[in-house]
């Protein structure tokens, strides 16, 4: 608490010198034109601006202020029906917000890398770590309770990875089972012999295994503790091999294995240790423990050298283990996993939606992203591409010929309406209702997932829409939506959301191309908030490409949150903005973004003991 106030003081001092004065130049305008609806009392859309009295408040909710900036700049706010600020007043607020958000004065923000990592391995991280440690690809954590996700929108957010009793029970049971299944050369490579006493051989095995499992050098005292367990089993008369495995059980339920634990090394913020950096890297790009090569570089103390770090990153992106990054980062960012949990197309209306098709839909964006990583392609291909990855069930859905079998391969797309993640079956299905597509949900998905500018929640008691796409009262679904948008309460957000979804109306609720809806030709025209018109998916994508910098900043923020295992804070803003700029200058190449992140201040440092 005391620390927060200190930061605010510093910030206020810095701001006044840097960019106009918030209290004198900006706040009065907001007060006059915004607070009535966005103040303390029943704030519209949950957006409250009245508490902002300095720059620090801005950095506590940079995402919201970014939206505020957009709304004011686009003259979407205040609503037409309400009093309007003068052009000068509007310009003054926009200029101040733009400077504060897009080009913050680093001097105004005392550097803060965030807390040291204390992170319980997620289910996927546990599975992969066991695979690399024990050579067992049985994915035991699939039987563990699922992890929820936190602020960054990813299930690797440390703050929301809890350790309930049921999980510890599973860890213990899994440890016993896994160690019994592991091959001797993995867990007990050293045998006692004429020149090697039993206890010494056991100690060697334990020391070797523990260093791997804990992902760092281990103090001898910790090994001696484990030797106690070995001795117990030995006295029970268990064979050497069994006795070592018994001692290793304690390793697999130890907090040093189940958690990534970083130790602050000073009072002030310091660089993380080389071992900690190796784990940060491997859990970022592989969702698993470091391999021997990373351990070697960490041991040599050279991992932090930019050339070494860059070479390691490039190697890791090419490694097959990098698929975990595509699955966890891209999969969760694009929310495709909802296909497994919540999306439920009605079997009567869509009998073609089989488990095989669903699995193919789930795989497509992952295959696409994984290939992008390996080729070091441009991230803009996620917005539009002239190819995709498909197998037979998916190709059939898309109307593509000549793709046989379950195996995925790269397929050229001649029709430019298809291509890019927004036109993938998974996305189109998860943004539909069981019996019809939803332009609103699709528009919302584009705003939220691709552009990072989610609309606020709907007001209570919104009007109802039909559950299928049959015309009602003589109006098509689209016409009903348009009518809905004439209501002042709804217009603000729906004129941003709905047109994006209309552009995708040529795809039905499972992503199949259609020319007609309920006998009427599809109307896939739309108008962006700035008045530019488009028709159909191809033109919609061209519009999205015009907003590539908004998209790039969103991907950057998402990837930082994923890499740092936490939601972003205001002190991360300068780092994120800088990276987004570098990315734009580097043709949006994937490896450039990853490199910028791993070389960044928050990735390489952590807070000390005295905040």
């Amino acid at each position, binding site marked *: 608490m005391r620390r927060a106030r200190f930061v605010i003081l510093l910030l206020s001092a810095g701001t006044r010198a840097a960019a106009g004065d918030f209290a004198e130049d900006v706040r009065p305008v907001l007060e006059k034109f915004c607070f009535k609806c966005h103040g303390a009392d029943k704030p519209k859309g949950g957006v409250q601006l009245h508490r902002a009295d300095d720059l620090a408040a801005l950095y506590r909710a940079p995402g919201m202020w970014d939206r505020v900036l957009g709304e004011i700049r686009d003259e979407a706010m205040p609503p037409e029906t309400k009093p309007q600020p003068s052009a000068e007043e509007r310009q003054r607020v926009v200029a101040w917000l733009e400077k504060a958000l897009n080009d913050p004065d680093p001097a105004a923000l005392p550097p803060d890398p965030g807390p040291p990592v204390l992170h319980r391995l997620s289910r996927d991280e546990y599975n992969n770590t066991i695979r690399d440690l024990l050579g067992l690809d049985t994915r035991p954590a699939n039987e563990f309770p699922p992890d929820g996700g936190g602020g960054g929108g990813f299930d690797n957010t440390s703050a*929301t990875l809890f*350790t309930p009793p049921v999980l*510890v029970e599973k860890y213990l049971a899994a440890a016993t089972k896994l160690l019994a299944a592991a091959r001797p050369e993995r867990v007990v490579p050293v045998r006692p012999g004429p020149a090697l006493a039993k206890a010494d051989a056991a100690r060697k095995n334990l020391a070797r295994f523990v260093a791997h499992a804990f992902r760092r050098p281990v103090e001898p005292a910790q090994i001696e503790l484990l030797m106690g367990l070995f001795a117990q089993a030995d006295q029970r008369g268990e064979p050497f091999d069994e006795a070592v495995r018994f001692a290793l059980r304690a390793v697999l339920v130890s907090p040093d294995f189940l958690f990534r634990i970083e130790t602050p090394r000073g009072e002030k913020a310091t660089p993380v240790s080389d071992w900690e950096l190796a784990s940060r890297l491997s859990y970022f790009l592989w969702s698993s423990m470091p391999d021997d090569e990373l351990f070697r570089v960490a041991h040599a103390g050279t991992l932090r050298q930019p050339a070494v770090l860059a070479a390691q990153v490039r190697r890791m992106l090419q490694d097959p283990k990098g698929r975990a990054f595509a699955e966890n980062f891209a999969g969760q960012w694009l929310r495709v996993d909802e296909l497994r949990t919540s999306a*439920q197309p009605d*079997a009567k209306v869509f009998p073609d939606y089989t488990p095989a098709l669903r699995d193919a839909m789930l795989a497509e964006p992952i295959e696409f992203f994984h290939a992008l990583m390996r080729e070091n392609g441009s991230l803009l291909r996620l917005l539009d591409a002239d190819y995709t990855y498909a197998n037979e069930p998916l190709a059939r859905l898309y109307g593509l010929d000549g793709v046989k079998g379950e195996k995925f391969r790269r397929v050229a797309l001649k029709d430019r309406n298809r291509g890019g993640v927004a036109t993938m079956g998974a996305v189109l299905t998860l943004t539909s209702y*069981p019996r019809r597509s939803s332009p609103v949900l699709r528009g919302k998905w584009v705003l939220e997932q691709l552009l990072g500018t989610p609309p606020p929640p709907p007001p209570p008691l919104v009007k109802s829409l039909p559950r299928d796409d049959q015309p009602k009262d003589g109006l098509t679904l689209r016409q009903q939506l348009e009518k809905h948008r004439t209501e002042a309460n709804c217009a603000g957000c729906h004129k941003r959301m709905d047109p994006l979804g209309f552009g995708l109306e040529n795809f039905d609720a499972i992503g199949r191309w259609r020319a007609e809806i309920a006998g009427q030709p599809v109307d896939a025209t739309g108008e962006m908030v700035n008045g530019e018109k488009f028709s159909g998916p191809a033109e919609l994508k061209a519009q999205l490409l015009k907003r590539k910098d908004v998209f790039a900043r969103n991907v950057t923020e998402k990837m930082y949150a994923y890499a740092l295992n936490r939601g972003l804070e205001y002190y991360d803003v300068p780092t994120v903005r800088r990276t987004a700029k570098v990315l734009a200058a580097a043709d949006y190449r994937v490896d450039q973004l990853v490199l910028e992140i791993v070389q960044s201040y928050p990735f390489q440092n952590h807070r000390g003991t005295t905040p």
Partner: protein
Amino acid sequence: MKTTPLSRRTMLKGLGATLCLPLLEAMRLATRAATTANPSPVRLAVLYMPNGVCPGKWNPTGAGRSFELSPILQPLAPHKDELLVLRNLWNAASNTGDGHYVKTGGFLTGTTITRTTGSDLRSGAVSMDQVAAKRVGHLTPLPSLELGIDPPATGVDTNVGYTQLYGAHISWSTPTTPLAKEINPRAAFDRLFRSNAPGRAAEAAKNRSVIDLVLEDARRLQKRLGADDRQKLDEYLESVRSVEQRIAFDAQRQRETVRSDGLAERAIKDLGARIDAYADPARVSERKGDHTEHVRIMLDLMVLGFWTDSTRVSTFMFGNAVSPRNFSFLDGVSGGFHEISHHKNDPEKMAQYQRINAWHYEQFAYMLGKMRAIREGGRTLLDNSMLLFGAGMHDGNAHDPHKLPIVVAGRGGGTLATGRALAYENNTPLTNLYVGMLRRMGTPVEKFADSTGELAGLGDAAFSGREA
């Protein structure tokens, strides 16, 4: 390990609720519940339904003993004498925030959850079931059993700015720690009954020494960490200790009286076979999205958990908050639960909403039937239990936390006078009911969140409500 039923020390052990003043009342209830003639313990279950109920179709008519079940409650008709239908209770702390998450995460805490996207998850209190578990949990292998159907969704509901974690948990072991629920039937079954397997006792003893070592090692680690991190590791240590307790039970196996019941053994075997059949991939597509069997297996697990005294406290979530579950497998229903709950007074949608609600009570009725068929010391298992079935709102279209749909089944070891519908004054705290239930679990609670005393007339057959 052995504790006297009302030791003052246990009572005061780190609970969010204010304990201990109405000692006499709790003693009286506990004594009545567990007389020498009926040594069976009282069990507590909470069943949570998402998305509320169809308005106008839930409220029973009449008061006290002479009441008629509503259309939604009709499936409970065979068990009418075992019920308390409670009207006009509400959860004041959830009358804020958003439509669903505050009404789910805070359902059993009576507090307002903190709006967060994940970094400061906080319900504000230990949930009612966990208060009970802290009281009686040490007497059974599992202090409590959390079951459900849906996995927690990843990420934030950006519509309202809450992490979806809140919508997936009603049980909180601390104000900041939600308890994960088991949704996999096989895993839940193994967890409950694996210790019946031969060779378990020896294995348990070995695991105990592993755990001891881990605890010792972790305590050393604690010293290296900062305050925040220490708290996080504390949570891990708490869990390790609870596993240690579980192992102690496994090793000692002194509770054979209940477990050696041949009927229970057969029921365990039968359920195991049903779970195998359920997990058979060939049957998945046959079910066509009908998850009734999944729900029933989980409810049967709860019943067996109580019967075998593997646990005395359990919660079950029919679905997470805002559940979009497609109920098209029911005749006359097409679409997702949440979507349909926003009926906008469209009669056709309301009929579907009502049908979905009734399906939930059909499952509850199934469970009650099972519990009534199990004999236990001259009573039924249901007689010795208290099952709270409820939702965090009434009409899902309005997200209204007033007039919550609350049913309690079972006689709490003879301390609840069932077979009545009771209407209370409007805005009577739901937590008053929690106070009453906790006291019947032997936990002498004076106040729980916003409670104003024990809910009137729970054990008084002559009481017929006090609606204004």
